[in-house]
């Protein structure tokens, strides 16, 4: 299991268990089914400890959606490109979504807003995003332009993620989904993955 898969699995666990108590019950149930339960009990305890900040002490975790209007997305686009070129931001955003190499030409048919929307929809919380940004910047040899873009991205998204607390999953529901710039204006997540990140 690689890091992305691990992250996805953890996200799924948190989504399925609404409270910390529910998580503990679920983990205990799984451990009881395994051989060498005492060994896995320790792993479960560590997992419970790590995941506990994601659960509010008094209220159950709700899967509220962060709704970003088109107006917000346009404001976000403006803010993230204040101190670097839009292409730097696009390359960084695309790299956040894939481990495969990304090239400027491959990004021409996707707007920056489209990529922003995908990133916000992909990362469940600001800390996960921040960690991924740090990790991705290494792929760009910590180039100052990309570092600027990453720093700006976290700064402008932080208030939006904070406002959505105690949200676990973040989803974007704009007034109208910004599409890629294909001839027919159609958009498809799988198609994007194939054409951009293949």
């Amino acid at each position, binding site marked *: 299991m690689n890091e992305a898969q691990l992250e996805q699995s953890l996200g799924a666990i948190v989504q399925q268990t609404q409270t910390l108590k529910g998580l503990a019950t679920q983990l205990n149930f799984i451990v009881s089914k395994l051989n060498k339960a005492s060994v896995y009990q320790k792993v479960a305890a560590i997992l419970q400890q790590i995941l506990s900040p994601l659960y509010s002490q008094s209220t159950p975790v709700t899967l509220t959606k962060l709704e970003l209007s*088109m*107006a917000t997305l*346009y404001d976000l*686009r*403006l803010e993230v*490109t204040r101190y670097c*070129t*839009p*292409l*730097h*931001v*696009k390359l960084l955003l695309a790299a956040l979504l894939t481990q495969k190499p990304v090239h*400027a030409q491959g*990004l*021409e048919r996707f*707007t*920056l*807003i*489209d990529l922003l929307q995908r990133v916000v929809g992909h990362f469940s919380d600001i800390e996960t995003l921040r960690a991924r940004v740090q990790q991705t910047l290494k792929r760009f040899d910590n180039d100052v*332009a990309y570092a600027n873009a990453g720093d700006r991205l976290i700064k402008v998204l932080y208030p939006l993620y904070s406002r959505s607390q105690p949200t676990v999953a973040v989803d974007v529901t704009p*007034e*109208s989904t*910004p*599409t890629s*710039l294909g001839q027919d*204006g159609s958009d498809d997540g799988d198609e994007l993955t194939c054409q951009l990140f293949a």
Partner: protein
Amino acid sequence: MAMNSPASYLLDPAMDAEEFLARYNNGQTNFCNANLAGMTLTGADLIGVELRGASLQGVYFQFCHFGRADLSHALLMGACFEGCNFTQAVLSQSHFRDAVCHGCVFDRANFQGAELTLAAFRDCNFLSSDLRQVNLSHTVLAGACLRGANFRKENYQAPANLVGVDLRYADLQGTNLASANLSRSSLMGANLKEANLNDANLSHANLENANLQGAILSHAVLCEANLASATLRQARLAKADLRGGDLTQADLSQAILVEARLDEVQAQGANLREAVLNKADLRRANFSGADLQEARLIDAYLARANLQGVNLRQANLIRADISSALLLDACMEEALMPDGSVYT
């Protein structure tokens, strides 16, 4: 200094990138009328370089910095710029035909009189740039940010030419596009919030899902325009011409449509709550299922309009001509009828 002409470049062999950079790094900034055609450069710092009248045809520049550079009268046909920074550059009278710019910054750049026809500027920033008298006919500006850009029509000058321009998902919030010719343009999903489109020509334009909240569209021509699902809340459309347009599911709540031409528009399911349609011409328009609650339709002309299933609750229809309108299943509770009576 002799004015550049395309023929003059034939006399000078193209300079290679190494020589150009070496000269610049040695302090030379004046490369006016130089021939840099076909050059490839990545990450070059060319701040303040003077390339007035230079040929940059077919160049490929990536992540280069042209801040405060002078590229006036430069020939940039077929050039490719990726992630380049042209902040405060002078690009007046330059020729960008068929050039491709992707993710570049042109903030506060001066494009006055430039030729940008058929050029592509995808996801570029043009904050507060000067685009007066620029030919943007069939230019691709998809995803571009043009807030504060100046397209203003000067006295005795032709209006900005944006015929067939591709502005899909472009950000034009608060931009002054008064009198601009945007006919047959693509503005799908564009942000035109509070933009000034007074007297603009938007005939046959595609504004589907565009945000025109609070925009000024007085006297604008929107014949046959596609405004389906567009937001026109509080927009000012007095005397606008929307004949034959598509307003299906559009939000026109609190919009001002006084004396507007809405003949034969398709406005099924549109939201016109508290809209002002006094003296508007709505002949043969299709408003079936639309919401016109508290709308003001004083002296409106609704001959043969389809108002089936319309919500006209508390609407003001004083002196409106609804004699031949289709009002089947319309809700007219507490509406003020043409003769001044309250509908019961």
